[in-house]
């Protein structure tokens, strides 16, 4: 590690019209000690599973061996693991990440050691630590997804999250999640294989997310999580070539927050009853709260965890404080309902 490589040549705009950022939270930059003992006051319920609080980690941004060094994973509402495939996946070649304005583009491509390793390593360790575990399921084909779900059906995982929305794999992933017929067929098969609460993670890279959401729910999904990353890319202006070896990747971070929020709101308007986990650009309790007002039962923190390992815990604590002043919303969440 010598000269740093993360710097790119653009400068970003600094000024913003203030929205919510200054309203209620203590803005004195008093440090929050996320390690002190804490009693959560506002749980939520997602597809029958009680979360200690409405904040989880987003898949792809959590590794127990990295994040578990910084906070007690049992204190999160839920831990959504990195995508688990039937066999070990090497993922995409590097470079796999590039900064973008208020965000980043990644093309990791679901590198993971496979479901057999997951079942004897990360999953039992997470459960021993007391975490509520959402196991993210990845595949290149219907058969891949079925192999993973078959092995997870009797596992101690609390929920399954079917990843039909990764933009960084050539088969499966987003290609399933953008076709309502293919998605309905896959979820119908998986539904028949397990009684575990099953979340389907949706892609924003579609013409009509409501149509996809209906297909998932009609096929038996217990809940929806949205959104996965938006397709994006960066070029290196010295070489004239894309920065990412995979050329395109998925955009995450604060830049996608209002976009993701509108997706959640649209799906909630169309499907009043399905549990929804809102994901995209959350780096504060206020932003998490906006998702709850848009109709989410819970949220997940992704890219913000990459800029501060403790941010998922900090967001959860900030949201717990904000919900104190919103008893009606807090009561609904605790009863498995939404705003």
């Amino acid at each position, binding site marked *: *590690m010598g*000269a*740093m490589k993360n710097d790119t040549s653009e400068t970003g705009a600094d000024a913003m019209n203030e929205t919510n950022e200054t309203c209620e939270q203590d803005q004195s*930059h008093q440090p929050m000690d996320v390690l002190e003992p804490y009693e959560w006051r506002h749980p939520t319920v997602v597809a029958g599973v009680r979360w200690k609080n409405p904040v989880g980690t987003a898949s792809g941004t959590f590794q127990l061996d990295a994040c578990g060094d910084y906070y007690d994973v049992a204190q999160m509402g839920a831990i959504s693991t990195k995508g688990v495939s039937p066999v070990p996946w090497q993922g995409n070649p590097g470079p796999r990440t590039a900064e973008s304005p208020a965000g980043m583009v990644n093309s990791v491509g679901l590198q993971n050691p496979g479901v057999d390793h997951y079942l004897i390593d990360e999953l039992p360790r997470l459960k021993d630590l007391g975490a509520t575990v959402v196991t993210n399921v990845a595949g290149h084909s219907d058969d891949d997804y079925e192999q993973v779900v078959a092995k997870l059906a009797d596992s101690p995982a609390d929920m399954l999250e079917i990843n039909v929305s990764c933009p960084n794999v050539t088969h499966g992933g987003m290609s399933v999640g953008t076709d309502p017929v293919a998605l309905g067929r896959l979820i119908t098969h998986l539904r028949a294989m397990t009684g575990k609460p099953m979340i389907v993670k949706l892609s924003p890279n579609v013409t009509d997310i409501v149509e996809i959401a209906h297909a998932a729910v009609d096929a038996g999904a217990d809940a929806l999580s949205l959104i996965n990353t938006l397709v994006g890319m960066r070029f290196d202006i010295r070489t004239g070539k894309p920065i990412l070896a995979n050329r395109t990747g998925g955009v995450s971070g604060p830049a996608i927050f209002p976009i993701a929020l509108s997706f959640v709101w649209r799906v909630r308007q169309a499907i009043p009853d399905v549990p929804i986990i809102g994901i995209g650009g959350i780096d504060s309790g206020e932003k998490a709260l906006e998702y709850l007002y848009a109709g989410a039962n819970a949220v997940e923190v992704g890219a913000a965890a990459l800029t501060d390992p*403790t*941010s998922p815990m*900090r967001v959860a604590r900030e949201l717990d404080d904000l919900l104190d002043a919103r008893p009606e919303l807090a009561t609904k969440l605790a009863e498995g309902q939404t705003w």
Partner: protein
Amino acid sequence: MPTNTFIPTFTTGSVELRAAQAGRKPGRRTDEVVAASRLGDGIYELVVHDPYVARTVRPAQFVNLYSANATMVLPRPFGVAKVEGDDVTLIYQVVGAGTEEFSHFRAGDAVDVLGPLGKPFDLAKRANYILVGGGLGVPPLLLAAQALHGRADGSKVTSVFGYRDERFADDLVRPYADEVHSITNERGNVVDLLDSIEGEVSGAPLPPVILSCGPTPMMRAVAAWACQRGIPAQLSLEARMGCGYGACVACVVDTPQGRLKVCKDGPVFTTEQLGWGA
């Protein structure tokens, strides 16, 4: 300066104590800039007050610095060059908007920090440690020299630094090195220097160990040089990183064992791990 959207997890005064009490590593926190100066053309030195890093960092480990500009979310990782008391010295080159922002720091400013991160050099053996650095790969080797200096086991430090033009680190390594060699681009590269000292290195009773940091092509050449002579080499890689602490799996290097994370499995790898020797 725009305010940061992140509320720091700790201030460094209490960080070490709290992390130790909870059995955890401290998260991102706000440090005070103790000193900032220009070392050469586009090269800057930054000293931050961080007792936790100062007391725990080992050579080749790095720290993440974060821009105060909320549009630049990814960390800027820098190898630690020196530790003095509770103060940590970083040396970096301005290569983009983030490092440009850092170059304007003055004493008393605040900067967000995470670390120390990554796997350090293995300095367990009694050896003649040959520190082979290129450009801004040199600073992390300064901390290795500092750590090895005056060790009771009689280990030696030989620096072999290659610079673009200004020899900005020779004076910085001299207090800790038994021998200082350097070369600038117009005269040659570090492999030329290694060739020139091969006789004294190979003939000596103290076995040589190479520690290297610099541009990847340089380190590949150093790995090949070391391998041909049966000299063990540890290489500290650089990569485009996402998080820097092992969560995102973005900064991988292809090895015979598969794709490994530069930030957490490394940045230090042996020639054997990388398969670079052959």
